[in-house]
């Protein structure tokens, strides 16, 4: 029996490599039963469908086996980043003036979902995630001209430096200090969970420019920078910065780091907006990020469900496919319902975000509620789908060869980041239901 399933696995691998040659699959490939191939396109706009198809084609060159290998080696998936940069995809949300395509978070979310769903998982999505959305909103014309074209062309990459070991969700208590000295800032402190810092040349850095005790308004003490963290070669960390890689559960292809600043210098010209405006600026991008994470969760959940459905229809025990048993098929059917609902919530949230950005539709609080709800719900149902996919595979689900264990490890990321489930529930309780603040 085991041999049988392994052979099927190999068969599907061969088929995939044929697909990578773009075609060559016999046209008379006929199957009596429908095979679940992923999300329905209901509710997506024409432009979202175009993005999905184009990204799907690019990702078909990087099958599950590629990602399993990257995960095992802990090596960066630069090929996908390069392919997406070459196709102009990193500029999806940026103005056309700088080489972007000026689409919305609705399209960017579809892009990240499609990447995750291809088998690339959260690792694949995170390889471009930080480059996609707004740091440019508050930047000057000169800064945009300097910063955006290299990010869009892929010659430079960015990472996000916000979280600190002693400060997580209470962002206003950040301790990393940036002290102004003439035309530069001197930075001291530490950040944690900084993804892609090993490969990035730029860091969006949130640091304290006024200490808490000197402030009447605690939200005015932080400033945002877009700092060069590497030397000219793009590889060697600049003086005053030290990166330490963190061993982690999943998404091992993407480095996550502790970053230590010791008299690290940033020119004043690399500060985004005015001093003290950093908190407001970082909040601005948060709802967008929630949508992207919801899309990534959705993608990995659907990838898991697709594998589970396939395995359940192929694995034969007691003379019939295990998927013929309701105990196996019903949980998978429930997951499909959950993911379909999560899709509708996610793309409704993304649309609300895009509408709000052009001054239409909901209030900022409503947008926040939707984006948070989408992130929460998509991550939870994706987790359930991944868990069920592992359980459907039984022992094989525990093997790296069937990929669902990798999805399972990675799906914790959208559950945990960029904000916990509990803080989302606090937000909804307070801002939507009008209940007293609990924390």
């Amino acid at each position: 029996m085991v041999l049988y399933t392994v052979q099927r696995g190999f068969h599907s691998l061969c088929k995939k490599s044929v697909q990578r040659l773009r075609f060559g699959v016999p046209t008379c490939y006929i199957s009596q039963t429908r095979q679940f191939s992923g999300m329905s396109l209901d509710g997506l706009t024409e432009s979202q469908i175009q993005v999905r198809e184009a990204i799907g084609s690019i990702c078909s060159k990087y099958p599950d086996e590629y990602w399993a290998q990257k995960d095992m080696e802990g090596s960066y998936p630069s090929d996908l980043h390069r392919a997406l940069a070459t196709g102009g995809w990193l500029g999806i949300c940026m103005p056309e003036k700088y080489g972007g395509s000026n689409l919305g978070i609705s399209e960017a979310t579809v892009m990240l979902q499609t990447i995750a769903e291809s088998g690339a998982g959260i690792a694949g999505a995170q390889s471009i995630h930080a480059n996609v959305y707004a740091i440019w909103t508050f930047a000057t014309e000169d800064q945009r001209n300097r910063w955006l074209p290299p990010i869009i062309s892929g010659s430079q990459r960015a990472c996000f430096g916000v979280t600190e070991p002693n400060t997580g969700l209470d962002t206003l208590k950040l301790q990393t200090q940036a002290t102004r000295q003439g035309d530069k800032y001197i930075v001291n402190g530490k950040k944690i969970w900084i993804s892609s810092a090993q490969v990035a040349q730029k860091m969006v850095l949130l640091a304290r420019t006024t200490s808490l005790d000197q402030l009447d308004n605690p939200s005015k003490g932080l400033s945002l920078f877009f700092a060069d963290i590497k030397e000219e070669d793009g590889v060697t960390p600049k003086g005053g910065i030290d990166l330490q890689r963190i061993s982690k559960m999943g998404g091992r292809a993407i480095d996550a780091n502790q970053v230590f600043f010791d008299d690290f210098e940033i020119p004043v010209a690399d500060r985004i907006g005015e001093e003290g405006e950093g908190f407001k600026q970082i909040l601005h991008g948060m709802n967008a990020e929630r949508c992207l994470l919801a899309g990534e969760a959705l993608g990995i959940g659907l990838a898991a469900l697709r594998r589970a459905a396939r395995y359940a229809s192929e694995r034969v025990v007691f003379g019939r496919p295990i998927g013929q048993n309701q105990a196996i098929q019903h949980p998978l059917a429930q997951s499909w319902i959950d993911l379909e609902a999560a899709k509708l919530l996610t793309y409704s949230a993304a649309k609300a975000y895009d509408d709000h950005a052009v001054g239409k539709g909901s209030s900022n609080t409503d947008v926040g509620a939707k984006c948070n709800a989408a992130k929460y719900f998509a991550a939870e149902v994706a987790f359930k789908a991944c868990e069920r996919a592992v359980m459907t595979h039984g022992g094989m689900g525990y093997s790296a060869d069937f990929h669902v264990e990798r999805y399972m490890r990675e799906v914790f990321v959208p559950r945990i980041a960029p904000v916990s489930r509990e803080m989302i529930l606090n937000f909804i309780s307070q801002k939507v239901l009008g209940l007293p603040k609990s924390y």
Partner: protein
Amino acid sequence: MRPSPARLLNILVPVKRAVDYAVKIRVNPQQTGVDTNVKHSMNPFDEIAVEEAVRLREKLKNSIESIKLVSIGPSKCSETLRTGLAMGADSAIHIETPDSAPAPEPLGVAKALRQIIAKQEVGVDIVILGKQAIDDDAGQTGQMLAGLLGWSQATFASKVDIDVEKKEATVLREIDGGSEEIRCRLPVIITTDLRLNEPRYASLPNIMKAKKKPIEKLTPEQLGVDLTPRLQTNKVSEPPKRVGGAKVENVDQLIEKLKEAGFAAA
């Protein structure tokens, strides 16, 4: 220096919207065809044709005046045309048929293409199209079009060179047992084989630009062509299920089995 207008070439690329190559197709319960409620995309051989037209322009620079696409079919064909425009074609013609209309057959398509070519004021010098579509596998349209127009034809192309000055095409063809190089005068019909090129992925900025490129809509009536099928499909059925093999212990047994089955001399 830009060549004189007489030396500028215009390329027409007919493309077909077909069931996506990666979809596992299913025969419908009535056995009249396959389930078409699945993902569709541009016929892969036509994608190669679009790619070749764009590569010819990249190679010959200003000598290519225009690359125009044409597709016949229901409203969704416009998506297929947008795909080709995003790859680098300049404009497109959509000969729109009702969603319920039967798929046109090669002769009807070839006649419609002849009308389209006659309508082009700047003329058409090169028609590049797939050697076949992966849905009906007819593999006739290019040849029929060449016959109707009395033009040169270079089918199953695996390499194409165009001499703009001499108005000649040198085409390497894939034939049984090897390849054949032919030279023909323009205008020419070229049909593409699998190994001609590997189509590019459209970049996002080009997908955005393609949205603004013109698609002219026409009907078969406006062209004066009758697309009514002349063939009747009696029945569509699945190929027989593959029967599992058996294992033999050694070569002698293998030869014995082959003899029994009549595959080896007794």
